[in-house]
């Protein structure tokens, strides 16, 4: 596979013709203007077992056990999963179902850790990534529990492993951060640019890549300058400015903008020789490999109209959100909606008892006027604003109409599975139709149907197995009865023969 080289003359035209997306107000200030502050250790950490896409981790600790920072407390199970490590030293209180960040609002299992404030760490193994084999880098990243920090939380090592099979020439680091309010990646790039660049080079080594492109939106000039300074003299890393437009920070969009290539429908970026990782993930991989540090902390933006001092905090995974809000001075106005993540794709939450997890990029306390006034959705006027805005080039209005009528199959035929749930269609819809919610519903419904089909197939096998077992048992029973009968008959015959022989000898003697 060739390295996708952008063609300057054509790329200008190509980019000019890409009209997708929307321009929500950025609202990144004042949080983006202050340095990242380290949040003091909270008294208690809540560590959900499902912080990543894939199978939840399996706990390895018991109530009352003392753990050190960086100690493995839950292991990955299954091909796509990630382990969990203690973010600080302390005592395990127990494992319980508690409120966790999930769109359903359902409780989920979590390990509860009482911190002791000493923050003692396990001895860590430092390494030089450029003397490690690529497979060893992937193994260490897996062991460190690194997942996609941009919010998707896909286990990073699974992605790196793709590069072991076929080298992936191009790495793209996603510094887009196109969601309004969020500035955690911006601050990371400004303050820790060398970590990001080093992370990029480690990933390149792991996937056999040739060059890395770091795409940063034009509204972050300081981040671009910091990265350029850090990458000075490094030949295989380039920093590219991309326009500020939602959803530029989506994998498919960034790839198409930077390389001019498109991921095939229902395909993966590795199919076209490209891998995308978030800048935060790159920094986490840098720490995991260089310093043997598992993923136990992250930067999160606390912002929104109701927050007294919006800022970026570096927090331990598992810190309750209420601690973050208190540290930022609490709220100044009544909060109309708490959102975890960005306002476009984040989830609305109803409790501040839930913890920060590996994929949490933001906590927003939004006041009434920051929310879209949501009257009853109107009828679709077929203006096609959503068609123009869809970054994938789908027809959201048609898909939603089909799903509304329950025809999920037809909506898949016109591309439902390629929808990235970015919400741009809902954002631009003049009738305020909750388009993306239809798509999320349909995707979940299709997944549920798939699970159901698998269950039915498995059950059919069980029924067959039971039937053949019953038959076998009946046959064995019949055979045993037969055998017993034959034995009895034989015994009887022998007895009769004996008797008749006796009679004969008797007769002979009398004769």
């Amino acid at each position: 596979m060739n390295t996708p080289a952008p063609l300057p003359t054509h790329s200008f035209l190509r980019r000019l013709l890409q009209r997708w997306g929307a321009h929500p107000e950025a609202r990144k200030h004042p949080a983006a203007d202050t340095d990242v502050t380290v949040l003091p250790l909270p008294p208690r950490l809540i560590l959900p077992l499902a912080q990543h896409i894939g199978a939840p981790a399996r706990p390895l600790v018991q109530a009352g056990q003392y753990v050190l920072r960086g100690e493995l407390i839950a292991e990955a199970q299954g091909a796509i999963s990630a382990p969990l490590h203690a973010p600080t030293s302390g005592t395990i209180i127990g494992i319980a179902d508690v409120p966790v960040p999930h769109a359903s609002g359902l409780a989920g299992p979590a390990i509860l850790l009482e911190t002791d404030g000493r923050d003692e760490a396990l001895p860590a193994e430092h390494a030089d990534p450029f003397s490690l084999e690529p497979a060893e880098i992937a193994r260490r990243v897996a062991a460190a529990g690194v997942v996609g920090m941009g919010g998707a939380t896909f286990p990073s090592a699974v992605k790196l492993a793709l590069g072991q099979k076929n080298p992936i020439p191009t790495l793209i680091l996603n510094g887009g951060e196109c969601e309004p309010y969020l500035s955690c990646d911006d601050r990371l790039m400004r303050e820790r640019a060398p970590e990001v660049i080093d992370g990029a080079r480690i990933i390149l080594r792991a996937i056999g890549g040739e060059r890395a492109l770091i795409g940063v939106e034009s509204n972050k000039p300081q981040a671009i300058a910091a990265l350029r300074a850090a990458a000075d003299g490094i030949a295989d890393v380039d920093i590219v400015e991309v326009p500020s437009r939602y959803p530029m920070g989506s994998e498919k969009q960034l790839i198409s903008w930077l390389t001019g290539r498109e991921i095939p429908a229902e395909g993966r970026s590795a199919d076209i020789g490209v891998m995308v990782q978030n800048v935060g993930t790159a920094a986490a991989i840098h720490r995991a490999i260089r310093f043997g540090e598992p993923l136990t902390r992250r930067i999160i933006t606390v912002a929104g109209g109701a927050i007294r001092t919006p800022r970026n905090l570096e927090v331990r995974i598992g810190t309750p959100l209420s601690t973050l809000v208190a540290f930022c001075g609490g709220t100044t106005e009544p909060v109309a909606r708490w959102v975890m993540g960005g306002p476009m794709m984040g989830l609305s939450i109803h409790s501040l008892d839930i913890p920060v997890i590996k994929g949490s990029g933001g906590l927003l306390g939004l006041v009434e006027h920051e929310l879209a006034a949501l009257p009853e959705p109107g009828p679709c006027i077929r203006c096609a604003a959503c068609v123009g805005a869809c970054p994938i080039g789908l027809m959201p209005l048609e898909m939603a109409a089909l799903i509304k009528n329950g025809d999920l199959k037809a909506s898949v035929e016109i591309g439902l599975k390629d929808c990235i749930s970015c919400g741009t269609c809902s954002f631009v819809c003049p009738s305020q139709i909750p388009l993306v919610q239809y798509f999320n519903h349909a995707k979940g419904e299709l997944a549920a149907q798939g699970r159901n089909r698998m269950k039915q197939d498995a059950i059919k096998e069980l029924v067959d197995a039971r039937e053949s077992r019953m038959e076998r048992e009946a046959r064995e029973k019949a055979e045993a009865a037969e055998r017993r009968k034959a034995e009895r008959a034989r015994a009887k015959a022998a007895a009769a023969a004996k008797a008749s022989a006796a009679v004969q000898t008797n007769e002979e003697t009398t004769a």
Partner: protein
Amino acid sequence: MLIAVVSLSVMGAVFGLGLGLAARFFHVERDGAEAEIEAMMPGTNCGQCGFPGCAGAAEALIAGDAPASCCPPGGLQLAEALAARLGLPLDASAIQPQRPRIAEVREDICIGCTKCFKSCPTDAVLGAVKQIHAVIREACTGCAKCEEVCPTGAIELAPVPVTQQTWVWPKPVSA
């Protein structure tokens, strides 16, 4: 005594042979469509449709005596597949409201009689004599056969609990 044993054995052999020959020579070749429909059904012969087993339901479906939505364990998915295969009209409202249900053991009143265990067509009940039984959720179709035989009412159907893994975004209500 010997006469009785011999004569009964001979009769048994003759009747057995007769049955065996009858099974071979009077074998009814089943309609291909019927076998196909039966293969689509859950195959547990639970009888909730009111027909004698899945084969009976398949026959009734082909004859047009049963609606596409006649199979409760199959749910909406099977009803849709049947309607598509046989060109039947589908009244989705007949099955929509019922959420899938599976058996659940109330451990405080289970006496460990193994009746449910023996009647389960999918081996979904786990247990032994005088041991509390349990249901393997992944294997239960909710056919309710166990519910009928339980002498204490300790096993009953309950809606499948929703977990984070099985939760689905609700469909928007209006618009």
